[in-house]
Every structure is written in C-alpha cells, then in structure tokens.
C-alpha cells in the first residue's frame, strides 16, 4: 500500500509521519506539495501536523482553501481514507469534512507533553490493531486543540461511535506534575473523531511521535499498522 503526505508551507511533522508510515508500510510515502492540484495514485492521504500558513486567520483555515485540498475533499467524500494529525485535524474541521471546531486551549497555553488516550472505537481502519482497553501514551503539542461542537453534534458523535479517542487518566492514576488528563479543555474529553463513514480520522495527539522504541514508546505504531492491514493488498 502507498500513502500521500500533503506538505503545506509551515508543516513540520511531515517527515516524522513519513518515517512512521514507512516503518509500517515498508515503502516511502509520496510527499505532495500543497500547490499541486492532482493526487498521485495512493491508498491513504495524510494531513500532517505543523503550523500551515503560520496559523494565519485561524489554525488550518488557509490550508483548507489550498488547491490540493479540493481534490482531498472530493475523494474523502467518496470514502477515500484520510488521516489528519494535529494541524491536519484543524484543516479537516475547517473544510467541514469533520464536524466542530478546535478552539484555543482553555488555559491559553501551548501544551507539549505526553497524554493518555482511551481508544473508543476499535472497529475502524485506523484502530483495529489496538487490541486492548489499556490506555495509550501519545504526545500532544498544540495551542488550538480545545475541541468544540454544540451539544446535539456531540451527542450525535457518541451515538454513531464517531469518537475515536478520549483523553483519560494514566494507568498509574493522576500525576499532578503532568497536569490534568484533558490537556486543553476539549468537550467530553474528545481527542479525535471520525466522520460518519469512518474513512476520515482527525486527532490532536501525534501517534507518529511515539512509533519507534528509540523515541521512548511505540503506542502510536498500531494506528499505522491498522491502516496497513485494512488497505494493503
């Protein structure tokens, strides 16, 4: 299987995610510049983390209007798999492919640390390799990760099993030094969501940053392995 990573001016996790993809897929992803208008023949599109267009106007707002995104939106609506991490999640909500918005963190601080996540739905192409209910340790690094949606939308996300990940307590209980389980004030502790058809995932935490034992953990790797087992062949 092959993935495309869309690179915007200001993306800074494009190479990290390329390494994680290569590890699971055993081949290099195609790096696609935001100004291109055609996508290569691939099985997965990844919108990486970073600060596309310097977060001007709103995080993800400018990237959501870039030429390549029109093609991404068209394919995503047809059921094509799309993964948005951090700034990629912000871009996905700005395009309207995912509901809600990502506001400034409730304590106004840029938060950069590991958090614990509960996998809420394991029956998807993104999460099938997470076998147990043990929380995952994955890093976050963002200023605008405070997930907001109105109450009916939040209810609908839960009713349709579209909540992908929730911030939770770690296995050793709360640790005051690390701060609260929910790092940004997100509604209902939501860290990542799917669309209705579950072919699109947007998440604030960075699975690509803990997908190699040399980096101190591998809890992010099953996400990429899940995609391989669903899409390869």
């Amino acid at each position: 299987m092959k993935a495309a990573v869309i690179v915007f001016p200001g993306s800074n996790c494009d190479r990290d995610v390329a390494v994680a993809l290569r590890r699971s897929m055993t081949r290099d992803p195609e790096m696609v510049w935001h100004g291109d208008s055609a996508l290569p023949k691939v099985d997965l599109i990844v919108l990486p983390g970073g600060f596309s267009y310097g977060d001007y106007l709103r995080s993800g707002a400018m990237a959501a209007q870039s030429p390549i995104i029109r093609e991404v939106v068209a394919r995503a609506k047809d059921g094509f798999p799309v993964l948005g991490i951090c700034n990629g999640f912000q871009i996905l909500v700005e395009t309207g492919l995912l509901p809600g918005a990502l506001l400034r963190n409730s304590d106004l601080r840029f938060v950069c640390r590991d958090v614990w996540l509960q996998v809420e739905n394991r029956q998807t192409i993104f999460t099938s390799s997470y076998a147990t209910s043990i929380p995952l340790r994955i890093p976050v690094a963002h200023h605008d990760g405070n997930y907001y949606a109105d109450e009916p939308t939040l209810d609908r996300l839960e009713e349709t099993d579209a909540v992908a990940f929730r911030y939770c307590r770690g296995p050793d209980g709360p640790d005051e030094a690390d701060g609260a389980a929910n790092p940004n004030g997100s509604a209902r502790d939501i860290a990542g969501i799917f669309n209705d058809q579950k072919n699109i995932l947007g998440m604030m935490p960075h699975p690509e940053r803990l997908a190699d034992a040399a980096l101190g953990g591998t809890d992010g790797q099953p996400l990429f392995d899940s995609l391989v087992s669903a899409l390869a062949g």
Partner: protein
Amino acid sequence: MKARVHITLKPGVLDPQGKAILQALGHLGFDGVSDVRQGKFIEIELDETEPNTAREKLASMCEKLLANTVIEDYQIDLD
C-alpha cells in the same frame, strides 16, 4: 468602497482569551468590567460600488473563509 467586517464568537462558545483580558483588566484596577469577548476586525477595499452586490460578495467571503460559522458570527459594515 471600504468594508469593515467584525467577527465575534457565537454566544455560548467559551472565549479563554476574553477571560484572560477580563482578569488582566481587574489586576490593573479597572472595576465594573463584567465580561470581555475577543474577536477580529478586518478592513477590505472593494472595487464594487453597488452596496447590495458588495454585501453579497462580503457575506460569501465570510462564509467561505473569513469566519468559521461553526463558532463565529460576522457583521458587515460599508462606508
């Protein structure tokens, strides 16, 4: 024609920046400030001279880019 677009958070959407400003005003000794909401103000120069057409164009700009209507309202003023 000059247009002024005000973008504000919808009522009910939490505004942590407004809250921080409210607190800072209190620290500076400004009493009687009960709430602060922070928004955006954008000035736009248009070639269009017909106010209704300009308004339509600006509304479309707000819907597509300037505002995120999930969380923000916008108001358009023309000179």
